[in-house]
C-alpha cells in the first residue's frame, strides 16, 4: 500500500520533470537550448504546458463511438499503473506480496493493448485506426522477446517475486547484482531494453503515433485531459520498465557501492532513504538512455519492426534462455 501511494505521487511528479528533461536532452543533442523562457532556464515550462492542457476543451467528434472513446485512456492508464503494484520500493517496503508478481506485471501491462485498440477504433478515423493496429501488432510482437528475456532472469534467480529478486542481489554493492554475478544476462538485458522501448511506443518504435504519417496515431482525436492521460501512460510505462529492468538486472534498491576491505561502504549507503534513492536514480539513468536513444535514431519501418522482433530478438532471447539454463544447471550450482 505504501509503495503504491509513493509511486502514484512519484509518477505524477516524474512526468512533469521527464517532459522537461526530454525537451532539454533533445535540444542539447540537436545543438539547441530547449525551453528557456518560462522560469529560470525554462524550468516551469512543463507546469505551464500542464495548465494549458488542463484548460483545453474535451473535444468529442460527433462520429466517435462514445463509450469506448471515453473509457480507453482510463483503461490504458489503469493497466499500466497496476503494474506498479508489485514493484518493491525499499528493503522493507515491498509491493503486493505476490509470489507471481512479475508474471502479474507483464500480463497486466499488456492489457493496455485493449485501451489502445479501443481508442483507435472508437475514434472513427482512419489514422487513429492505423495507429491502433500498428500498436497492437507491435506490442504483441515485442511481448515475446520481453517475456523470454525476463524468463532468463527468472530461471537464474528462481523467483517471480520482485522483492525476493532484490533481496537476492543484496549483500555487497554492485558485486552481487544479477548482471555482475551472471554475465550471461547481458544479452537478455539488451533484448529486454529494446523490447521495453517497443512496448512503451517510444522512438525508434513509435510507429503507432508517428506524427509525420498518422498525425498522432490512436490519440489523434483526443484533447485536453484525456490526451494528458495518454501522455501520462507513456511516461508511466517508461518508468515502469526502467524500474523493472533495475530490479531484475541491476540490484533493485541495493546500493552500488561495495565494501572495500574494512570500509563498509555498502552498509553506510543502505537504509530506507538510501534504498529509494538508489532504486530511483538507477531508473532515471535508464530513462535518460531511453531519451538518448529516442533523439538518436529515426523511426523504423513496419517491416523492419516486425523483422527485428521475429527474426532477431525472439531467436536471440530463445538462445539466451537456453544458455541461461545451462549456466544455472552447470556453472552456478
Amino acid at each position, binding site marked *: 500500500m505504501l509503495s503504491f501511494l509513493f509511486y502514484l505521487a512519484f509518477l505524477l511528479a516524474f512526468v512533469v520533470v521527464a517532459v522537461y528533461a526530454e525537451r532539454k536532452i533533445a535540444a542539447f543533442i540537436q545543438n539547441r*537550448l530547449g525551453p*528557456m523562457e518560462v522560469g529560470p532556464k525554462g524550468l516551469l515550462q512543463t507546469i505551464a504546458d500542464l495548465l494549458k492542457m488542463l484548460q483545453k476543451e474535451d473535444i468529442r467528434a460527433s462520429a466517435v463511438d462514445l463509450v469506448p472513446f471515453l473509457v480507453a485512456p482510463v483503461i490504458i492508464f489503469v493497466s499500466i499503473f497496476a503494474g506498479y503494484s508489485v514493484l518493491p520500493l525499499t528493503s522493507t517496503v515491498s509491493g503486493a506480496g505476490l509470489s507471481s508478481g512479475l508474471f502479474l506485471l507483464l500480463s497486466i501491462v499488456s492489457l493496455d493493448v485493449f485501451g489502445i485498440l479501443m481508442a483507435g477504433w472508437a475514434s472513427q478515423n482512419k489514422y487513429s485506426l492505423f495507429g491502433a493496429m500498428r500498436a497492437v501488432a507491435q506490442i504483441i510482437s515485442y511481448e515475446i522477446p520481453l517475456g523470454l528475456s525476463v524468463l532468463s532472469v527468472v530461471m537464474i534467480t528462481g523467483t517471480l517475486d520482485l522483492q525476493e529478486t532484490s533481496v537476492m542481489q543484496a549483500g555487497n554493492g554492485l558485486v552481487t547484482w544479477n548482471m555482475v554475478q551472471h554475465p550471461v544476462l547481458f544479452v537478455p538485458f539488451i533484448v529486454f531494453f529494446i523490447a521495453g522501448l517497443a512496448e512503451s511506443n517510444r522512438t525508434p518504435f513509435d510507429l503507432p503515433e508517428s506524427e509525420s504519417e498518422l498525425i498522432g496515431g490512436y490519440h489523434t482525436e483526443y484533447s485536453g485531459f484525456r490526451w494528458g492521460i495518454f501522455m501520462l501512460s507513456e511516461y508511466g510505462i517508461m518508468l515502469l520498465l526502467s524500474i523493472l529492468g533495475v530490479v531484475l538486472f541491476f540490484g533493485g534498491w541495493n546500493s552500488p557501492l561495495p565494501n572495500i576491505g574494512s570500509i563498509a561502504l555498502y552498509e553506510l549507503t543502505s537504509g530506507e532513504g538510501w534504498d529509494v534513492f538508489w532504486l530511483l536514480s538507477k531508473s532515471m539513468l535508464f530513462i535518460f538512455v531511453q531519451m*538518448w536513444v529516442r533523439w*538518436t535514431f529515426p523511426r523504423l519501418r513496419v517491416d523492419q519492426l516486425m523483422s527485428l522482433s521475429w*527474426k*532477431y530478438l525472439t531467436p536471440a532471447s530463445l538462445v539466451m534462455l537456453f544458455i541461461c539454463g545451462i549456466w544455472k544447471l552447470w556453472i552456478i550450482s
Partner: protein
Amino acid sequence: MSYFKNISNATLTTLKGLGLSLKYFFDARKKRKKEWVADSNYFERAEGTFTVQYPHEKIPVPDHGRYQLHNEIDDCIVCDKCAKICPVDCIDIEPVRATGVYGQTSDGTSLRIHAAKFDIDMSKCFYCGLCTVVCPTECLTMTDEYDFSTTNILDHNFSFSKMTEKEIAEKKSELESFQKQKEQKSNVSSKPVAGVKKPVIVKPSIGKPKTGKPVLGAKKEAPVKPVLKPRPIPKKK
C-alpha cells in the same frame, strides 16, 4: 552469413550513432559565442549550442548594414536624388525653397531648400541601398537597426522632417512674397516661367542645386519620374 553480418552491422552503427549524439549532448555545455563575422575563427566554431535568444541577445551586425534607413535631416540639402533613384518610390519629399542660403551642412554645403516633408516608407523599401549611394552629403544612411516591426503598417512610414506646420506655412509665404518681389523687379520673365515650368526643371543633373533652378521644386517629381520608369504613357499625357 548475412544474418550475423546484419547483427554486427546493426550493433556497430547503433553504438556509433549513440556515441555521436552523446558527444553533442555533452558539447551543449558550451555555447557559441556571438562573434563578429570577420573574426578569423568564425567558421571553426562548430561546437555547442547555436541558439541566439533573440530579444535578449543579438548577433553583432555592421554599423551600416542594409537595415533601417536614417536621414540626418540637418545635413540634408533636399536634392531629391534619393527619391528619384528609389526603384520602389518609398521616399516622399516635399521641398520648400528658401529665399536664400539659410545654413550649412556639416560638410560645408549650403542649405537652400527646406524639407517640409521627408518620409521614408520602410514597408515599401526593399533595402537596395541605392539612395544612400547617391546622397551627395551622405546624410542618408542605412543603420544597424533591423528590429522595427510594428502592428500598424503606417508606423513603418518614418518621417524625418523636423518642420512644424506653422514653420512650413511661414516658409511658403516667405517664398511667395519673395517671388512676387522678383516678378515686380523683372516683369518680363515672370510669365514664361509659369508656362515653361516643367521643361525648365528637367535639370536635376546638378547635385547641389544652384539658386534659381529648384524654384518650383515642389513640382519636380512630375517631369522626373517618368524618366526613371520607362513607361511612355505618363510622360506623354
